[in-house]
């Protein structure tokens, strides 16, 4: 199966990010005063340490964990908003549908990064706000896709049969429409996660995302970029990890979508 390779790689990364920090002697924020700026493959630090002596392997694993957690949470927020909005528009139809979809079009046109940055500046930085903000931005595609599916499902004869069978509209939506959306929604959920990873990394890179000493892949890439001339591995390791995650998620999402036929 062509889905298997990207999913297996993702599972491996996830496992490392979850279990890895527990197996390491160093915490992500612990400073090893005896080994500041240690090179890779030094006796106590496999990937060396950063400019204040924190173990880079521990920081990379924890950063991956934070990035993925924020991305999954934000994608779930996007899923909930997108499915609710899209399903409501598609099911109600008519002018309501037109109006709701024009709202989506209008939101598409806004410069979202700017809105998220404004939110961060106004309300201060917190992980909660980061993923709520990103989730509130990334639901638009989901809403469009779900609306299209609902429009198609609504015309399927089994919906008419359910109505003739006396099922109330809420029962039809819950029993026939939403379960048949699950596959396509999962595919787009997988496609939303990498977008959120990008946004989160970008915000962190700008210093607006996760706060020190907690870290994320974006922060690590930024720190690495600051020292790329003396310690290129500090940029390469989190950078490559980020690219791998993005490529795997996108491939898995697209292949799943093609298989479902959305």
């Amino acid at each position, binding site marked *: 199966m062509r889905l298997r390779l990207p999913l297996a790689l993702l599972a491996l990364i996830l496992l490392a990010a979850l279990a890895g920090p527990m197996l390491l002697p160093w915490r992500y924020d612990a400073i090893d005063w005896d080994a500041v700026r240690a090179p890779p493959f030094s006796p106590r630090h496999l990937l060396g340490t950063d400019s204040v002596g924190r173990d880079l392997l521990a920081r990379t694993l924890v950063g991956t964990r934070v990035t993925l957690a924020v991305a999954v949470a934000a994608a779930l927020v996007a899923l909930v908003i997108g499915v609710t909005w899209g399903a409501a528009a598609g099911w109600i139809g*008519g002018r309501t549908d037109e109006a709701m979809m024009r709202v989506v079009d209008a939101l598409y046109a806004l410069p979202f990064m700017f809105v998220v940055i404004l939110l961060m500046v106004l309300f201060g930085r917190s992980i909660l706000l980061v993923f709520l903000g990103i989730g509130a931005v990334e639901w638009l595609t989901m809403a469009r896709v779900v609306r299209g599916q609902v429009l198609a499902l609504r015309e399927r004869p089994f919906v008419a049969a359910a109505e*003739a069978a006396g099922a109330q509209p809420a029962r039809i939506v819950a029993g026939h429409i939403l*379960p*048949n959306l699950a596959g396509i929604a999962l595919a787009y959920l997988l496609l939303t996660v990498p977008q959120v990873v990008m946004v989160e990394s970008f915000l962190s890179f700008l210093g607006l995302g996760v706060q020190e000493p907690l870290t994320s892949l974006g922060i690590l890439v930024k720190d690495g970029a600051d020292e790329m001339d003396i310690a290129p591995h500090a940029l390469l390791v989190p950078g490559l990890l980020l690219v791998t995650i993005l490529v795997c998620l996108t491939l898995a999402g697209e292949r799943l979508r093609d298989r479902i036929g959305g």
Partner: protein
Amino acid sequence: MTVYAAERLGVFAGETPLVRDIGFSIERGECLALIGGSGSGKSVTCLAPFGLTPLRAAGSARLMGEELIGRPERALRAIRARDAGFVFQQPLTALTPHLSIGAQLAEAWMQAGAPRPERGALTAALERVGIDRAEERLDQFPHRLSGGQRQRVLIAMAIVHRPKLLVADEPTSALDATLRGEVMALLSRLRHEEGLALLLVSHDLASVADHADRILVLNQGRIEESGAASAVLAHPASDYTRALLAATPRLTDPAPTLQDPGGTVIEARDITVSFRRAGWRRGAVVAVADAALSIAAGEAVALVGGSGSGKSTLARAIARIGPADRGTVLWRGAPLPPRGRMTAALRRFMQPVFQDPVASLDPRWRVEDIVAEPLRHLRPELGPAARHARVLEALDEVELGEAYAGRRPASLSGGQAQRVAIARAIASGPELLLLDEATSALDMLVAGRVLALLERLQRTRGLAFLMISHDLAAARRLCHRILVMDGGRIVEEGPADRIISAPRHPATRRLVAASA
């Protein structure tokens, strides 16, 4: 002169034979029809020798004396471009929506190896297949054309390079009866005027009887029977052919004996349905205008008409599962509330069965839950045990055993899925079934068995039917009365036999002529 000849032709999927030991030949200007149920191998027999399927063909197939079997892809393409044309089933989806008719026709021409054709030549090609205002059509896009016109364009594309053989794989089965007749007449004209040999795959026995010279009956990949069309249809030698013929109702069948209907159960008056045009634009399309009908207990009424005549819309409005602008529906004299306010007690009397059996079952539900759905809502007094018993009873009545209860729609054949849909419709004990083209998506043998099942339900349960169909012969087999719709209005109404023997309205005459 022999155009195409097959000898000991076999088609294999891997090592599994799908078709074996087929032999036939087609002369210039002749039409050979391949008939058989689904899975009988009739399509692959026609397409595999030309390399149009991923399957492997063996034996011998010669087009204009040239062997096709075992030739490489390039050689087959050259042979197809020179001597063979192909027409397929789906005229609605076979044209590219964003290219004009002229552009697609020109492409077909160039694919056959000719230089870019003149506009005059394109116009002539469309006129050759009987398209009116051909010059203007060249610049139109496929959505402006009706299904029949699109099939004509596809035929024009298939014969633009003057092939000797035209392979037509169910060219009319997606079209309604009137259009079927027109398309078949066009193919016959091309045969007679231009000496085109026609290899026709069909399950429409009526048109085969009219247009084919010889018939080959296939069953499970083998020739069951072959011979002159009139002889095979009049005196079938094999049981399989007899079953095929018996399954297909024809207008020449003796009149059925139907039970006498009782008092009026449902009466609809002044039903009008219109659809708003898409987007913010104003205006509406009137789909049904001031339609009225009544059905008695145990009576079967057919609603016939071409595609787009509004018959499904009317039936759905009456059953309160579709929109209606105005009009009243009386159930045993008492008016039914509008769609949104129908109560379970009223829904129980009317249940629908739809055309596409697979789409009418939720793919995520088990058969048991599907059949139980109306019971859950319409017979809430039944407990889980009683409900389960009713489900099994309903499945038994449609000749599906208990074993089917746990299956999902994806594992059912078309005929089984339609039986499940019928079980769902009868589970709550309705008095009227709405049959919306309930047999027209099924293979002919299966359709025949479903018709027989409906006949039995009509007898044993005293069910009334409102049967929507474009097939007059099927309507006549079950129905007392026929209502003909055209352009959103009911234009003629009367006893089935009178409508068929003495049609009055032009739309009815067209339908009868096309079905005969």
